[in-house]
């Protein structure tokens, strides 16, 4: 691989890392806490590439000249080209965040080890629906057995996923993917909903409704919390599509 190609790859990677953070696209792939790390790493790689473009720092040694004279491009590992793949993909194809496909391959149950040590504060005494994350709804409904949910209406935002992979039957789950670090370790958080329209998979919706005691045995980690839908409408995909533990 020629020096110019190596420097070009470094500039491309560094530049892409910085612009994905700038545009917010990085939230499709990693947790927001990596923001400054990505900017710093991107800057280092970018500077390395730019340094290489503007300096011809290579000492004229006999071996090096022979290399260049004979085949011109013996100076870099060819496997380095592969590094372009993920960064090209980001800027050209712009992959969507993980959605119904991944969710349908996961049970959607939250392990009891994720139950917080302290109980969550009571919800405000209001007739307006309380907006909360699906993870919080899970904790209140399953781990706290719905104690704090009985009086309030809640508003949840998530996407539509089928009960079984590939099924277009009437039942569906309101779903959100959660990640610890990056999308490779994602798991699904699902809420069993009753009522509301059956929209296509991966449609983002805001749902308002009441928690109710679902069919599953209460407190068992396999049971999903259930919500009776009062009203729902489609919304645009949130800037940050994931939830975090």
């Amino acid at each position: 691989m020629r020096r110019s190609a190596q420097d070009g790859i470094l500039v491309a990677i560094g530049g892409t890392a910085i612009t994905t953070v700038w545009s917010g696209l990085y939230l499709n792939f990693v947790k927001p806490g990596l923001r400054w790390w990505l900017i710093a790493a991107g800057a280092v790689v970018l500077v390395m590439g730019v340094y290489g473009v503007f300096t011809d720092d290579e000492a004229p040694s006999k071996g090096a000249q022979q290399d260049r004279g004979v085949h011109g491009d013996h100076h870099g590992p060819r496997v380095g080209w592969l590094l372009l793949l993920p960064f090209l993909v980001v800027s050209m194809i712009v992959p969507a965040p993980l959605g119904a496909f991944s969710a349908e391959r996961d049970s959607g149950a939250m392990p009891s080890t994720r139950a917080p040590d302290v109980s969550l504060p009571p919800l405000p005494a209001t007739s307006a629906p309380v907006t909360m994350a699906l993870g919080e709804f899970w904790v209140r409904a399953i781990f706290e057995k719905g104690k704090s949910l009985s009086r309030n209406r809640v508003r949840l935002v998530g996407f539509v996923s089928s009960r079984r992979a590939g099924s277009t039957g009437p039942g569906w789950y309101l779903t959100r993917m959660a990640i610890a670090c990056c999308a490779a370790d994602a798991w699904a958080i699902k809420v069993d909903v009753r009522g509301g329209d059956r929209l296509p998979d991966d449609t983002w919706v805001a749902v308002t409704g009441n928690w109710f005691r679902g069919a599953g045995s209460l407190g068992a980690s396999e049971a999903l919390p259930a919500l009776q839908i009062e009203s729902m409408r489609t919304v645009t995909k949130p800037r940050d599509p994931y939830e975090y533990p």
Partner: protein
Amino acid sequence: MTTELATVQAANHERQKLPWLRFAPPAFLVVVVLVRGHLIALISSHPAISAWFTVLVSISLQALPFLVLGVVLSACVRTFVSPTALTRWLPRSPTLAVPVAALSGALLPGCECASVPIAGSLVSRGVRPAIAFTFLLAAPAINPVVLVSTSVAFAGQPQVVLARFVGSLLTSVVVGWVWLRLGRDSLIRMPARHILAKSRLGTFVGEARHDMLHAGGFLVVGAAVAATINVVVPRAWLDVLGGSLVSSVLVLAVFAVIVAICSEADAFVAASLTQFPLTARLVFMVVGPVIDVKLFSMQVGTFGRRFATRFAPLTLVVAVVVATAVGTVLM
């Protein structure tokens, strides 16, 4: 010098056979740009392909900061640290140097992507391979960042954090000692480097550039394998496989190798695998940082295939045995 010459000649020979190969990457780029619209349509209509790309990109993006950290540190070692300084800092007896190297792994707050280039630079600076490998195995598993994330994932179970620390430390020390006694360092083939710069800064950037492209390229290979597993094998399969302690230990050991989750995040995954006994989940957390598909790919690139195909199984076996023993005793 002879090996280097042989490498050059081999590369030369190959290039004469396939002269068009050098035009392949740029041509590929042009094609990608031309068919971009079709590509996007194709991918968005196939959720599995779309998920594959998302996972590939997220592993690469997440690894980038750690890769850069490792590459910069290893370029520092190669450029500014004299071989004698390193050997003076370690105990003279290699048997003693192994545990010292393992404990100093706690000083590197990164994940496995950072430690491969650093281990490569240590070997090139005259550190005995067994000692460098001990550091390579220990650093991603016992550093403070990983231990804190483990304690967050297993809230209220401090014995898990302790067991993880002890298990990973023991694994790296045992592998180090075994390699010291039985390993053949002649298996290691570090690729020839051609960094000939006029200035110190030039050497530094040259080393970092080489490592970045080399380790990074192999990282992408591993990430592609892990993304394929992620898309092809549903998590629900694990539910079927976890049964007895023996089978669940083996299942999670294999799972750790093929999913290649960063050591800073694997504790959250382990915490979610509640259908498995705690000891099996400890095995998952001890195996993952020392050997997985992306680490193996990077080891092949840095130390050669013949080395990696022997070192990786050794690491896997030691990690499984040690973690099972530690889990049984401590938890």
